[in-house]
């Protein structure tokens, strides 16, 4: 039995502890945002956050994740109330087939949690592990910039109201 904390909820999982997280997210928890692209840690379609760090869930056995905080796109917001990164991707229409996008959003979220106003070079650097075969990169970059601005603005309003 492995206890996983996904998007703030505890789940008791009874599968082989060697199973990579991606399969558990999709098959057991029916959280289907993270995608299977290569299964080899080479494409980033399966990217999720573990303790605020983007990781490839296809090569991370659940046994190493007990007591750690896992987040997927489902934890960023809902269809009715998308989070800032999701909204930015929607507003920039940053998707062709969309297969890489959940991974892109999680990597962007991870970046923005560490660095609220990244430079273009920093965004490119941080997003580099995630591949997009449709060629949506320019829109994705715009979406990340937009999300950064939105999150800064949000933080500003929160500070204003706190005063």
């Amino acid at each position, binding site marked *: *039995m492995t206890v996983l904390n996904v998007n703030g909820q505890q789940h008791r999982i009874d*599968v082989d502890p*060697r199973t990579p997280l991606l*399969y*558990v997210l999709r098959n*057991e928890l029916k959280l289907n945002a993270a995608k299977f692209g290569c299964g080899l840690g080479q494409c980033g379609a399966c990217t999720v956050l573990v303790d605020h760090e983007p990781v*490839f869930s*296809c*090569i991370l056995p659940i046994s190493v994740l007990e007591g750690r905080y896992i987040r997927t796109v489902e934890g960023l917001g809902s269809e009715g109330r998308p989070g800032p990164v999701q909204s930015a991707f929607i507003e920039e229409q940053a998707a062709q087939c969309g297969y890489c996008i959940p991974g892109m959003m999680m990597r962007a979220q991870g970046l923005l949690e560490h660095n609220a106003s990244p430079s273009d070079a920093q965004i490119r650097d941080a997003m580099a592990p995630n591949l997009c075969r449709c060629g949506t990169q320019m829109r994705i970059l715009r979406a990340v910039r937009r999300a950064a601005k939105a999150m800064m603005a949000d933080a500003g309003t929160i500070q204003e109201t706190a005063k």
Partner: protein
Amino acid sequence: MVWRVLLTVVVVIGSAFGAFYAWAWNSEIPPTNAPATLFDPGIVAKGAQLAAVGNCGICHTQAGAKPYAGGFPVQTPFGTIYGTNITPDPDTGIGSWSETAFRRALHEGVDRTGNHLYPAFPYDHFTHATDSDIGALYAFLMTREPVAKANRAPAVPFPLNVRLFAAGWKLLFLHKGQIPPDASKSAEWNRGAYLAESLGHCGACHTPRNVLGGEKRDGQFAGGQSEGWLAPALNAASPAPVSWTAEQVYAYLRNGFAKQHGLAAGPMQPVVRNLKKASDADLRAIATYVASFAGLQNDADREQETQKALDFARSRDSKVPMPPSGAITTSTRADAKPGRTNNDSAAPSGAVIFVGACASCHHSGGELPVSRPIELGLSTPVNAPDPAALLRIVLDGIHPSSGERGPIMPGFSRALTDPQITALVSHVRSQFSRQPAWPNIAAALTKVRQNKEPATEAP
């Protein structure tokens, strides 16, 4: 009487220092303006190949900046020294250096104005380069794009920052002169010896150094350090389970990959990238020379040992269970009843982590859409005397240099915790190596984590 003795001591020390100072003093060589148009294109092309063999571009180029304009931090146990601007810019580069001044720098480690250079610039090797090769290098550098970029002062603590110390170092470790040819060896071997020992400066990383930073003369190619990586021994002490052949060394230098050995990583990766411009004949010569140090020179012995290593590697490899595929049916849902406990998950063992994190690439079954890595049982880092290189690879992975094709391995520095990495690395050692277990992986991991590798960007 006492005064007399004291006076004699003072005079002796004083004159010894005076003599040393006089010996160590170098005059300035007047500035010059060497017009680029005067260089023969054939000589420039030869210089380009020699610059590739010498890997000048690595230490003299900062990541993301213009080639040869300096700024790369060379970390030494004595402090950080920044590669200088060697573009022909007259003010910040070497544009005002005559060929004589350039030759003096390579042969004697003295800059144009007469300052002693730190031995991070490996003039203890370059001193063996022929005048004509240095002339070609000079022609090549003088025809590069001049870049105005001021040199960064070395971060070396007192008293080592007194340049005269470098003169003292030379007294001990600079052995000038050509490398005497060995008549008992082939012309190719002798060519390789010349290139490897002079411009190639292989020993700068692969030969251990003494406390003063000089290469140990009795330990040639016995293995050293570079930028926090292990520079493996190239002689009989090589940790590679399969003894290197000239053909394999050549493949490794040419393509960055040798069957039965694996790929060039760490500081060797930019070396191989630079060597792309080196000629085939020169690489084969270097390979012939380097392989002549390998442990097994007799073909029959070699074949026997290779077979043993391969058998061992394959036997261990096939014992790795396949990672579970997508079809997992033995599950309960999020509302699982407690009680069906699987104790493995309480403290994941290295073997459990290996299957979930590594085996999808590092096992022998199934097909990979990308090139398959070599069996871990043949890997040099896995069989090395200490775990630093393997830890570095597990943490950072392997990535081709920006814009280039090449094998990729993701790093696990953030995905796995320190105890998990320690367990994993300890498992890999016991599963895939016949060498004894590493005693203190956790401490080595802390050290490797602290020692961040500087980014390299070669032209």
